[in-house]
């Protein structure tokens, strides 16, 4: 990769992290005003984990994520309008208003679901990798899940299958130190989540989840390994969740004494901007990215606000391929 390419890649990483951060900041504020129904699990603090991982993927590679679903699709390049419209429950939302905040999955960029049942995405990712292997397409399936998810049987079975069958899958465990209110050390008997991989004789990598370059490098190594037929890889990104488990859970579930400040001092966007400036990037370029992103997010909000809600009958679409009969009380 020559200097310019590498430079534009870096700016793209910065742009995607900005997109996530600004998208969520705005979402949080309009959620507070009651414009977004349901719960809101933000990704703030974890942007480098998602963006670094997705930058290591080909456009046609697959991705599966979880309830903390805003960051993953944006990291993989999804457009913001359908995502924001989804948060507002509109018909032009990426899931036609059926999914909402926990399920911002954009299949057009290779996403195969952001599933809010903890651990449940892992077998799906293994299956996508199996599909790629059977079809010999050279695609890889990457799965994001949390530290807490590693205790679920689904995660175990999915990773075991991927290892037993040597599938082209990459498992990115975003260790943000908590599962809801529960500190990782209380719920997980291993020091590093990467140790989970030993149960499958699976290659594992631990990486600083605040450093988008480091994450990209680690996941690139993992993806290359998987794509070349050497089997799945487990990547642990050590990161941190700034907010409550979800906005609007009524209280901060996690007492943290100073922890938050420590982590915010290594905010992935701040340290990356610093690095880019140190590397000689003109601050004005970065400012432009930030303001362009602000415009993009504002446009997404406007789009979402202007959009229509789905019609009553649409509740009966997509249970199956054919629309279900709509009951009388909803047609009259």
């Amino acid at each position, binding site marked *: 990769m020559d200097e310019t390419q590498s430079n534009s890649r870096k700016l793209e990483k910065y742009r995607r992290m900005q997109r996530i951060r600004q998208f969520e900041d705005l979402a949080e504020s309009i959620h507070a005003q009651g414009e977004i*129904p*349901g*719960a809101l699990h933000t990704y703030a603090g974890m942007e480098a984990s998602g963006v670094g991982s997705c930058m290591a993927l080909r456009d046609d590679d697959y991705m599966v994520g979880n309830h903390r679903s805003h960051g993953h699709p944006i990291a993989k390049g999804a457009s913001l309008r359908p995502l924001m419209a*989804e948060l507002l*429950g*509109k*018909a032009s*939302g990426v*899931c036609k*208003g*059926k*999914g*909402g*905040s*926990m*399920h911002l999955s954009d299949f057009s960029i290779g996403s195969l679901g952001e*599933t*809010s*049942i*903890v*651990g*449940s995405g892992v077998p799906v990712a293994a299956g996508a990798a199996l599909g790629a292997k059977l079809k010999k397409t050279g695609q890889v399936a990457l799965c994001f899940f949390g530290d*807490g*998810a590693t*205790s*679920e*049987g*689904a995660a175990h079975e999915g990773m075991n299958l991927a290892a037993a069958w040597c599938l082209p899958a990459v498992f990115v465990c975003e260790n943000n130190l908590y*599962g*809801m*209110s*529960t500190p990782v050390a*209380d*719920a*997980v008997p291993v020091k590093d989540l990467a140790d989970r991989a030993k149960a499958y004789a699976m290659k594992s990598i631990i990486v600083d989840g605040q450093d988008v370059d480091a994450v990209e490098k680690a996941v690139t190594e993992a993806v290359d390994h998987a794509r070349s037929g050497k089997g799945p890889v487990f990547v642990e990104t050590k990161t941190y969740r700034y907010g409550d488990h979800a906005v609007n*859970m009524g209280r901060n*579930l996690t007492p943290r004494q100073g922890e938050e400040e420590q982590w915010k001092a290594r905010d992935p966007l701040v340290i990356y901007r610093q690095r880019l400036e140190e590397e000689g990037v003109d601050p004005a370029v970065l400012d432009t990215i930030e303001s362009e992103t602000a415009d993009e997010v504002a446009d997404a909000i406007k789009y979402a606000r202007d959009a229509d*809600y*789905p*019609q*009553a009958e*649409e*509740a*009966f679409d997509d*249970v199956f391929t054919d629309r*279900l009969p709509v*009951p*009388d*009380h*909803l047609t009259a």
Partner: protein
Amino acid sequence: MAKATFLEAIRQAQHEELERDESVFMMGEDIRCNVFGTTTDFVEQFGKERILDTPISENGFIGAGAGAAMVGMRPIIDATISSFLYPAMDQICSIIAKSRYIYGGQARLPLVIRSCMFYGNSNAAQHSDRPYAMFMNMPGLKIIAPATAYDMKGLLKAAIRSDDPVLCFEDSTCWMSKSELPDDPDFIIPLGKGDIKREGSDITVVAVAGAVPIALKAAAQLEKEGISLEVVDPRTLVPLDRELILQSVRKTGRAICVDPAHMTCSAASEISAHIAENAFDALKGPVLRVTTPDTHLPFSPPIEKPLYPSVERVVGAARRLMNAQQPVEA
């Protein structure tokens, strides 16, 4: 006696039974931090040993509840949201429902699995389940689904004292409803006894969980039109108070089953089939069901809300039943 909410009733029931019996303990995800308000101050009072935060592994900790129960403990397992019971179906169906039987009575499984049905508020399909009917089809599980704070307290205490495994489904649409709660520490409502929530003469409305307040509102509204609904709340779904339902239908001659769950193979269907089989001679018209149609629950509020049973739908069904000479549909 003081008025308290459904959630407070859960808290009180647990608190009293934890105080009463050392073998009672609680486990679940994030219960120490009291997410929904049913474990306020429990860690302080009962200690971390008896109030256990679990790893996120429903099959593991629900199964561990079974093992602990087999050796003499009485776990109250908080599975948070009913949708999280699916990952635990292995232990619920194969171990908890069947162990007593398959080992010829050697195993005893006094345990309670609590979970809330978290629907109606844009939680989307993966978090909005109301799956009690699935478990009704599996012998060996007692099931309570109370609709009032009073019933909740009495039934949950009975469940904790029961030597059989009990699933407790907590309808989140009832969370804030209030009753006077008895403070007699031995106040219990026996499992398997239904309750006539309102007497009436024209139509029996058998309503499940969150459908009970809806049926009661419909009854109040229809009274003005001269239609008298009798609202029967089974409260316990297994064992079901089948006789109470039949008695009511034999009196009124008409029945509507209202159930917030999906229609097919629902509790409403079971109750309807039970009536059609055993009180047919009393029937003056079809047995109607008012349920959630067999679609998933969407996130978007304007299309989610109209899917559930509502006062209007119950009123509509009742009117049609009273007029029905011609064919009727719910």
